[in-house]
């Protein structure tokens, strides 16, 4: 029998017991619908987090601290050689840094001496009082400590130019209160930043707005390039030089040509020397694990629904095989081979799987897109850039294939029954 005829016949057979097929399709529909939505939530959240990773930093840097990695299990053992009393205050706002011992100039030199490290910069913090544009309202502002190594999720303008004049990346929610018409208007303008030095005197520093950034979960505050941070720190210290400056964290850039194995080796080397070193990916690993866990549980529910639906397919097709006993016997008597009968019934299962999954996926995508839009405009407006339900063609196709595969597997039992039927027994069947 021709393959095309087998397919046509199988598809036609699905329409022969309409009610039964419809019910089975509905069961699959529920599974497909759920799986599509949970997968979309996973994709949406992951996509959002990935954007946040980009806003957190370049992928050629280690965040170096003086302690062991905070992601390692349990507290670190006290060692008089390397440990010193912790202040208990948290480091400047970067996830994963935690409380740490300070890094000294000598430490910076040591880190810089590792092969593959291109440069090491301490992360300096400047406590800014306000930002003001053109005699307008003075607004409080925080400068993100690692902004010189991060890529902002920009709404307008460009990333910070590390080589140039003092520059600022302004959070989007400052655009309006500062008196700019739009994010685009703000780019290129000069703002004054107020800062109080250690002696209690207030100064202002000028900076150009390089870009406007999307608000971000993980990296808050304005971005400042090295030139601006240096100037602010200088003003803040009021000319008083500390002999032995100490830093909470430093940023070490490594050679981008290194393979991931080499990066891992380099990281191990730095850790062996008594530092904590984490790439941005390391820091986000924990968050991703949590998200993946939640999505995994949701997917498990969808898969349970699909397994229930699979039994529905087995049942439906077993009834069809029973009902069509004589027909199968006749076809076999007329020379149809067992494997063709098998193909007919398993393809019928696949066709049912296709109907259920196409409907489920389609309805989920339509409803989900509408829902996602409504959520982004309403309850989730505080998280700009988050599309809570992200439908990716590849995963939609994957879900459909998965369901059709499950349907096929479910169909093999009835199909084998049908294929094994003896033509005479079938013809004698009343």
């Amino acid at each position, binding site marked *: *029998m*021709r393959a095309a*005829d087998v397919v046509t*016949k199988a598809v*036609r057979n699905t329409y*022969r017991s309409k009610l039964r097929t419809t019910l089975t399709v509905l069961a699959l529909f529920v599974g497909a619908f759920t799986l599509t939505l949970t997968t979309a939530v996973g994709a949406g959240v992951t996509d959002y987090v990935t954007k946040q990773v980009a806003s957190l930093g370049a992928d050629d840097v280690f965040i170096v601290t003086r302690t062991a990695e905070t992601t390692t299990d349990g507290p670190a053992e006290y060692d008089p050689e390397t440990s010193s009393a912790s202040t208990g205050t948290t480091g400047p706002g970067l996830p994963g840094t935690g409380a740490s011992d300070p890094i000294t100039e000598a430490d910076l030199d040591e880190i810089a001496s590792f092969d593959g490290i291109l440069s090491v910069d301490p992360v300096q913090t400047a406590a800014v009082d306000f930002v003001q544009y053109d005699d307008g309202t003075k607004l409080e502002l925080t400068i993100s400590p690692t902004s010189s190594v991060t890529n902002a999720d920009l709404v307008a303008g460009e990333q910070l130019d590390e080589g140039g004049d003092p520059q600022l990346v302004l959070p989007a929610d400052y655009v309006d209160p500062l008196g700019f018409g739009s994010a685009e208007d703000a780019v290129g303008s000069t703002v004054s930043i107020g800062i109080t030095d250690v002696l209690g005197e207030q100064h202002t520093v000028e900076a150009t707005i390089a870009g406007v950034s999307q608000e971000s979960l993980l990296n808050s505050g304005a971005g400042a390039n090295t030139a601006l941070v240096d100037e602010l720190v200088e003003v803040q210290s009021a000319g008083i030089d500390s002999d032995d400056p100490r830093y909470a964290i430093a940023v070490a850039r490594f050679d981008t040509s290194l393979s991931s194995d080499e990066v891992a080796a380099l990281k191990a080397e730095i850790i062996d020397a008594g530092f904590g070193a984490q790439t941005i990916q390391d820091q986000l690993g924990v968050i991703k694990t949590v998200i993946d866990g939640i999505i995994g549980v949701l997917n498990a529910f969808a898969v349970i629904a699909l397994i229930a639906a699979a039994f529905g397919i087995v049942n439906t097709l077993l009834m069809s095989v029973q009902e069509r006993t*004589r*027909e199968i016997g*006749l*076809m*076999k*008597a*007329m*020379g*149809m*081979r*067992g494997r*063709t009968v098998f193909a007919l019934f398993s393809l019928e299962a696949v066709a049912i799987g296709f109907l259920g999954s196409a409907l489920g996926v389609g309805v989920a995508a339509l409803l989900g897109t509408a829902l996602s839009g409504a959520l982004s405009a309403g309850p989730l407006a505080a998280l700009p850039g988050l599309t809570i339900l992200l439908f990716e063609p590849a995963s939609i196709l994957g879900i459909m294939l998965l369901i059709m595969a499950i349907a096929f597997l479910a169909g093999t039992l009835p199909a084998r029954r049908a294929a094994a039927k*003896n*033509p*005479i027994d079938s*013809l004698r069947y009343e």
Partner: protein
Amino acid sequence: MTDLVIDAQGIGKTYGKGSARFTALADVTVQIRRGECVAIVGKSGSGKSTLMHLLALLDQPDTGTLAIEGVDTRALNARRTSELRNRTFGFVFQQFFLTPGTSVLDNVTLPLEIAGVAPRVRRERGRAALAQLELDDKAGSNATDLSGGQKQRVVIARALVSEPSVIFADEPTGNLDTATGAVVEETLLRLNREQGITLIVVTHDEDLAARCDRQIVLRDGRIVSDSAREEVAA
């Protein structure tokens, strides 16, 4: 020797095991020549259907040998057996076995579909077969909507669409009233007469049996008389 379409030597069939063992057919030898019209008659349970199923390769004999058109069937694998059945035999059963919800034409062309014939050729030959049985106007109808006599003619059209050399008919008129039964009977005999198709018909109907060239009478799974042998013997 090629003149022998079917050559069965001492074939037998036993059903069941142990105390339920039942010999439905024992040591049956029949030779059927091309173009013959053979009626298999006998009481209910005498083994008529069993014999027909064995001759039509729908079942395997436990004893004896069977050759179809000179080919020993024991030498054939499952695929070749299926092909041989598809090519050589046409079937008409007491129950019509039409696929419900499917058009008359699709029912008729089923053997061709199984044989892998292209759809266009299938339709042509299906229509030709229906025309032969004066059912051309019913080609598009749903098979379930036909009368009993029409259904049985559709079944005959299906049996002859693949141009078989043998048509097996098990009680072809059993389900029909006398008048329509006569039409079906006439149709089958005409195919045998005009197209030389070998006809092997299992029947209770003495009339139909009498109109065949040859009658084989079974009792308790054995041939008690075969008109062809009597002729030879006479």
